[in-house]
């Protein structure tokens, strides 16, 4: 009975008795969720337009952040470094399109997936060779990112929101909104959607696939840069950051590979779910369950919707 009590009743008693902690947990969950969603967003963009499951998104996050900080440390002013980093991400997109995607056009998914592994290895080696393997401090102040926290009195306790987390949430929302506008309202956006629907049909109406791929990879690069800045500010800029990119996998699975809103909602569900789980139920089994909880949550959803929450319905024909 004790076990049942501690599983089904006690966590809710705790939630009720310290609502400020519950609010704080939800907030932390939302923030991690936003950050997971940012990584997942990069995956989704590329998967939608080119059908590539881009494993290199994680290392792109590290690479973008490293380039930014590396340039700054080499004496480039922060804002100029930011612009240069964006230029580097553009070059990377062109390079990937020319050297990896174009020769591999029309290959099975798993081969393209594998090619992005190759890209990951290459970027790890290249990044460490150029910028060195030691961790770097993210230049938050120089980029005019706020520091410190805002605290609210609430339910007899307090809830503290980090300004950098609020900024992350704002930037993520702005980015998603901008992407939505870009996809829906611009000419290139329409072309992107056409490519996502069918490569061949898009080609036949005169859309240049190569150009579209560069644009998508470049966009994913910018998303990676934003992600890198945010994660870097929370911790440090180092190659350990790529581990965190794995957390985007359950998010993607949950939200569906092709849906931008799916990435966001999936990220938030995973973020909140794993924080609540770790905080209220984790102590029952000695904590540290975060590493697999996200996958179990995603698995639970998948059993009911095998194509993810927002994924396109899989219709199988013989």
């Amino acid at each position, binding site marked *: 009975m004790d076990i049942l009590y501690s599983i089904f009743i006690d966590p809710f008693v705790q939630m009720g008795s310290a609502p400020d902690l519950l609010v704080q947990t939800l907030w932390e969950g939302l923030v991690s969720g936003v950050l997971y969603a940012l990584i997942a967003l990069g995956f989704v963009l590329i998967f939608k337009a080119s059908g590539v499951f881009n494993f290199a998104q994680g290392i792109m996050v590290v690479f973008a952040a490293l380039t930014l900080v590396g340039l700054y440390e080499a004496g480039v002013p922060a804002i100029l470094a930011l612009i240069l980093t964006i230029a580097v991400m553009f070059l990377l997109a062109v390079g990937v399109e020319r*050297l990896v995607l174009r020769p591999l056009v029309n290959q099975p998914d798993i*081969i393209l997936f594998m090619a992005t592994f190759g890209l990951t290895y290459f970027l790890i080696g290249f990044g*460490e060779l150029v910028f060195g393997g030691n961790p770097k401090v993210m230049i938050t102040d120089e980029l005019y990112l706020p520091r410190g926290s805002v605290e609210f009195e609430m339910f007899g306790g307090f809830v503290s929101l980090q300004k950098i987390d609020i900024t992350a949430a704002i930037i993520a929302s702005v980015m998603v909104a901008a992407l939505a506008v870009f996809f829906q309202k611009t000419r290139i956006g329409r072309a992107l959607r056409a490519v996502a629907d069918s490569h061949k049909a898009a080609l036949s109406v005169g859309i240049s696939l190569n150009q579209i791929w560069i644009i998508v990879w470049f966009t994913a690069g910018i998303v990676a840069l934003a992600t890198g800045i945010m994660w870097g500010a929370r911790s440090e800029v180092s190659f350990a950051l790529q581990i965190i990119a794995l957390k985007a996998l*359950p998010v993607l699975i949950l939200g569906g590979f092709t849906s931008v809103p799916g990435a966001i909602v999936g990220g938030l569900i995973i973020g909140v779910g794993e924080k609540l789980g770790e905080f209220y139920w984790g102590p029952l089994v000695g904590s540290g369950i975060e590493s697999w909880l996200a*996958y179990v949550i995603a698995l639970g959803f998948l*059993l009911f919707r*095998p194509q993810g929450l927002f994924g396109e319905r899989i219709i199988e024909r013989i």
Partner: protein
Amino acid sequence: MFYREAGQFKTNYAADMAVFPILQDKIGIAIILALALVVIPLVGNAFFLSVVMIPFLVFALASIGLNLLTGYTGLLSLGTAGFMGVGAFACYKLTTIFPEVNIIVWIFASGLFSAAVGVFFGLPSLRIKGFYLAVATLAAQFFLQWCFIRIPWLYNYNVSGAIEVPTRTLFGIPVTGPNASPEMRYYVVLGLVILLTWIASNLVHGRIGRSWMAVRDMDIAAELMGIKLLPTKLLAFAVSSFYCGVAGALMVFLWYGGAEPEVFSINQSFLILFMVIIGGLGSLIGSFFGAALIYILPIVLRGAPSLVGLDIGAATVEHLTFMIVGALIIVFLIVEPHGLARLWQTGKQKLRVWPFPY
């Protein structure tokens, strides 16, 4: 010219369906076996045996395991390292509880534990497909790794939290532990790998293998043709995990000789997936090629600068190794997306018609 089957007539079904239908193939495999069994242990030094050959064989075995699942049955798995870990920990528990039983028996038995765990995590595969299935296996990977750290019973409450491999003997000669000679360990690993490869080859050429491939090519069609999906997929998970489990036990007992749970991390799973894809999905010989390329290439690259007399810092060599391996993966995929096994086929075809182009 070199590789002609002219004059070799098949007079019955069995001969036609043989794994090595041509005389040259039979000679080839005999030469390879002779090389592996006699020449390498004679010529190779301890470094070559214990750093190159034993790990290569262990990885090849794990790749075969994953290939049975991903290449033959079309079920993507990222939990390989977790299943290897189950094998290693099971073997450790078994041999410490029953030390008098021969270690080889326990290595096989540990594969069975791994198979059981694999079946459990394979259950969602009936409903979830493709990359989505990968998440189920990732859940297995992370959950199992958590168990290896969190359940002290698994590592006999060792303070270090690691497996410490005891000395075990075969016919009085130590095969595990520090006193086991590289030659002995090599022979044990080689023997097991040859045996299990032979079994796998028979599996995939038989009814089971064909039902796996039918499921891979289109599972609905396979179902309509009367193949029961759940047992077929679960069997694939079981056999695959068995192979991975044995590979895991071999890895810790005959290669590392002691390991932390950290060695069964997600990176290991990815590494074995690389080997399978680069080697060739759905090809047993490809698993060997893939393991050789992904595992041995970096060792060669790391050793190369000092061989040619260049003195570059160890870290720089490592960075360059990463870059070269990454670039080579992409190049190989561009040259031959179907893996090294297909290159091998093409090569054989070329030899056959040489000196003519077709």
